[in-house]
């Protein structure tokens, strides 16, 4: 594992500078998803991006992962301009990206194997992650034999086991049932808060989930995303007990405040688009 460089602590985990992204479509109509987007995410924070579906949230993650390149502008991560995949990031994408020919155990340990970690350390971490995700009995199953929710948990373990500096997650919990969801969210949260040196950026359309988990909620409008509609810091104390939190007055207040703002911004954005 590469040692964490504290010296880079002041460089942004992610820095989008005037990013534009245009997809060239087959029928020659260019589709602009992002235009003039500036975004800064500081290291060690747990940030969620909320917005209507189809607005380009996933595109932002793909840019951060280095899987897409901006049409203009630049994306920096920890002080380095991305040119190819982001070497310090893990990505839990929305697509089912597990390797169907590898067992659950082999899938989870893949990142460690690729880095050439000694086998005993691999298996040690693997066992911890299998139990964390409630997958102990399924180590030797293949992804095709699992339910959608279980596959998602394998994906989460696969991305987190390598202890990346930046974790990008695209609606990671939406496939899970309520009980598992709460459990997995708490596991991820406790893992992150134990060290607080990992940056997490996750996309969701669930505002409640966004507030419960993150330090900051970034709201984006409908496509093309020209800028963020608002950034709201969440000042709920940590560690958070998710189940109790929802009834907590400070949560309700934050939720109301953000929602009021979103409504306002959405209205403006729709009107602006309508007259544009």
């Amino acid at each position, binding site marked *: 594992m590469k040692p964490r460089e504290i010296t880079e602590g002041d460089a942004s985990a992610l820095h989008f500078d005037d990013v534009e992204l245009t997809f060239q479509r087959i029928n020659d109509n260019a589709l602009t998803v992002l235009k003039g987007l500036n975004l800064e995410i500081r290291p060690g924070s747990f940030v969620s991006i909320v917005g209507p579906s189809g607005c380009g949230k996933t595109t932002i993650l793909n840019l951060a*992962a280095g*899987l897409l390149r901006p049409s203009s502008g630049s994306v920096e991560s920890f002080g380095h301009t991305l040119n190819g995949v982001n070497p310090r990031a893990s990505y839990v*994408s929305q697509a*089912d990206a*597990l*390797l169907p*020919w590898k067992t659950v155990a082999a899938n989870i340990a893949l990142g460690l194997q*690729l880095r050439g970690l000694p086998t005993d350390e691999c298996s040690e971490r693997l066992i911890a992650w299998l139990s964390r995700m409630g997958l102990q009995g399924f180590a030797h199953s293949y992804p*095709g034999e699992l339910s959608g929710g279980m596959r998602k948990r394998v994906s989460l373990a696969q*991305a987190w086991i390598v202890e990346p500096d930046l974790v990008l997650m695209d609606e990671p919990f939406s496939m899970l049932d309520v009980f598992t969801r709460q459990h997995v969210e708490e596991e991820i949260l406790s893992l992150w808060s134990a060290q607080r040196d990992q940056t997490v950026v996750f996309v969701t359309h669930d505002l409640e989930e966004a507030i419960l988990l993150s330090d900051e909620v970034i709201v984006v409008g409908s496509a093309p995303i020209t800028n963020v509609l608002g950034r709201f810091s969440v000042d709920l104390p940590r560690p958070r007990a998710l189940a109790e939190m929802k009834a907590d007055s400070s949560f309700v207040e934050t939720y109301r405040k953000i929602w009021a703002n979103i409504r306002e911004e959405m209205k403006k954005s729709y009107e602006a688009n309508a007259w544009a």
Partner: protein
Amino acid sequence: MKRTHGPDLGVISGRFVVGAGFLGIWQLLVSIHWLDHFFFSSPVDVLARMFSLFGDQQQHIGLDLLTTLTEASLSFVIGTALGITAGFLLGNNKPLAEIFGPYLQIGNAVPRVVLAPVFLIWFGLGIWSKVALGVTVVFFIAFFNTYQGTRSVPVHIINNVRMLGASDWQVTRHVVVPSVLSWVFSSLHVSVGFAIISAVVGEYLGASHGIGHFISQAEGTYSTTDVFAGIGLLSIVVLILSAAIDRIEARLVKWRPRGTALSSDVA
């Protein structure tokens, strides 16, 4: 995944009834002379002949079987190897694929049976004319499946593995090769079947040994019993091979392939 249990008792007895019924009616119709024994032989005689053939000094049925199997195996191995190689090359090289693409389509469109006489002239009556025929059939099956496989390696899986830190070589090893192999394995069944068909067709047209040759000889003397006995032996061989491939496939593609085999159409 549902474990593939054997078929249940109802299915097995159903199969038995259908098989026994077919043979029974055939036997009955011949016995009451509704069917002429000269043209249709009878199941009992065919079965008896299948056993007696092995003791028959006039015939060399063991050698015939061995010859056909040798030809089929050689064309299977050579054709698959060439097909996989070509599929990988063209799948990973777009200009090459664009240049050779139309010719491969043309090649595949040629009914391979018409090539048999040509191969007979080129390679003679021995096994190699049959192997050549089989190779032209098996090659295209392996080629198209491999080509399709290299083209349909899931991009999101490649991206995921690259995010996890894989080098190009590791992407090939962990994603491309297994993905392509799953396509290739699912085409093995079809390939084995066609390898045998090609061998028999080749022998039928001109050979000194082999099941095809045996059947053609029997036909020449109007010995329907021998023709059916030859067909029966051949079927048993194909069934055994097919079961063997099933086993191999189940072991190698434990995780179950998603893609189904493309079988090139063979005339």
